[in-house]
């Protein structure tokens, strides 16, 4: 090794940073081919300069004799005596013997950097996957408007069962039912009570306790919307849930059974004589009847969750409050 230049001896160039610059130059050329000729020129210059420097370094030992410093020991520390060979099945075979005075051994660094790199790669992979699994359920949850057709289909003082698709793109799975009662005029504007059929206990579909007039059912097809199915119901005395027996009165207040609050309601609007269904909200209690009712409104809350009273402290925030 002491003599150089001969082809029989191995020759290794010293560590060098020039290849990094050379690589940057090549990268600039490639990027420049896409964006601009000037970047190609700049990249070519960089690559040429660093390439020459690299070549000069790499070929030095051919051109001049290399001076190799004799191996020295660390100041003040005697070289450790060679370790006793240990049989492979005993002890920690893979771990090297630590030399005295070596405070941060290479193997420890490699262990920690492997763990750290692995954790970083794991995080980079996991975060988008978990986000992909969770986040779509919380964004774009805003309820779409539903056109329920002309007001004349809703006789005053009677409930009508309306079934409709809340998101026609999704098809039947988005079919919902609302109980709609025309309350007559309030301050010159039509007033409606629109009750969701989702039970406030665990979300089963409540049914009207009344005479369902199947023969008077009709389909309304608003322009640009899916068909709305309307069935009038006579002498409704309330609503009942088939699953666990929750009972409600005509305003949706709980009268018996396990529900924890009143039935949810829909906001509505009137557009050129047509009833438009807007978003859903939850209801604490309703005082009064029909157009005179005073409704305690809350953001849409999951079934079985209290909206008022001390139990509501258990449910301080709802997804509907952050997603829409």
């Amino acid at each position, binding site marked *: 090794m002491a003599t150089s230049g001969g082809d029989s001896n191995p020759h290794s160039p010293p560590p060098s940073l020039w290849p990094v610059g050379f690589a940057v130059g090549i990268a600039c050329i490639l990027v420049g081919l896409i964006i601009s000729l000037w970047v190609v020129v700049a990249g070519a210059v960089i690559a040429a300069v660093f390439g020459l420097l690299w070549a000069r370094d790499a070929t030095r030992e051919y051109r001049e004799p290399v001076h190799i410093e004799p191996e020295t020991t660390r100041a003040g520390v005697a070289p450790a005596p060679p370790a006793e060979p240990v049989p492979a099945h005993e002890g*920690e075979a893979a771990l090297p013997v630590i030399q005295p005075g070596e405070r941060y051994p290479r193997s420890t660094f490699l262990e920690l950097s492997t763990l750290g790199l692995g954790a970083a790669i794991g995080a980079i992979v996991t975060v988008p996957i978990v986000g992909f699994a969770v986040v*779509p359920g919380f964004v774009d949850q805003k309820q779409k408007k539903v056109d329920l057709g002309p007001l004349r289909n809703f006789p005053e003082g009677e409930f009508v069962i309306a079934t409709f698709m809340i998101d026609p793109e*999704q098809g039947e*799975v988005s079919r919902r039912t609302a109980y709609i009662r025309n309350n007559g005029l309030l301050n010159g504007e039509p007033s409606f009570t629109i009750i969701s059929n989702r039970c406030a206990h665990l979300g*089963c579909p409540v049914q009207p306790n009344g005479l369902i007039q199947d023969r008077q059912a009709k389909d309304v097809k608003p322009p640009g919307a899916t068909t709305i199915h309307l069935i009038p119901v006579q002498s409704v005395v309330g609503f009942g849930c088939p*699953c666990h027996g929750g009972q409600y009165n005509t305003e949706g207040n709980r009268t018996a059974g396990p529900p924890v609050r009143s039935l949810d309601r829909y906001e509505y609007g009137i557009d050129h004589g047509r009833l438009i269904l807007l978003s859903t909200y939850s209801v604490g209690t309703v005082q009064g009847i029909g157009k005179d009712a005073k409704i305690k409104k809350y953001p849409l809350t999951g079934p079985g969750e209290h909206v008022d009273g001390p139990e509501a402290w258990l449910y301080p925030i709802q997804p509907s409050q952050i997603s829409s």
Partner: protein
Amino acid sequence: MATRTRTPRQVRQEKAEIAVNYPLDWLEERSGLVGGVRYFLFRKVPSDTNWFHTLGSATLTAFLVQAATGVILAMYYKPDPNQAYESVQHITNDVTLGWLVRGMHKWGASVFIILMFLHMGRVFLFGAYKYPRELNWIVGVLLLACGMLEGFTGYLLPWDQTSYWATVVGININGTAPFVGSFLSQILRGGAEINGDTIARFYAIHMLLLPGAIFALIGLHLYLIVRLGVTSPPWSKEAAGRERPPEPPSNGRAGLIRPGPRRGISR
């Protein structure tokens, strides 16, 4: 060459032994698998074990039946809100032996859950959860939870009225958990309400996520059984389990989390 004369029968026997052993030796030399299988299967078991000790392997068999039938059902089932019900009807009525495989999966699900509970009862009554087998009880609890979740997610897949509304109620029961409930149920549904993505999501959880977890946990469960041995019944006079292995240097932890004490350094 032979020191004593051998009958042709003995010669044939030796040749057969060589023919059988050669591939096994080849495999063993390169993988150690033969020894591993021997270690796994040829264990010492208390002589007074009885039929109650077979409940665990019965549960494992029930799970393997679920896995096998589920894989085949997945070839015909369509996890789409507009096709799921029809595809299940198709499996039941049209596909050859579909009624049988679907029936095995449906009734086998109940068998699996029932056997898990019987197995748990056996372990409890025999005191087999005690030292040093506490960890295996915990793994078993996780397996039970995964099995119940399999039942919950699988129940939606026929996509009929019963399964739909049972899932609505199940998710909403989840939603009544304080503080986080409604967020959990929204994650389960993949939206504010059951929607077109919910069934595919349940399907993926049912056939990919949970079976993977169950297979991994069963592996851990069996490893601990093999390591710790089968418990004797409570009335047994025999000591159970393997000999306790000598404690490895530095508790076997060396190099796993942090470097253990090393030779040449006194600490």
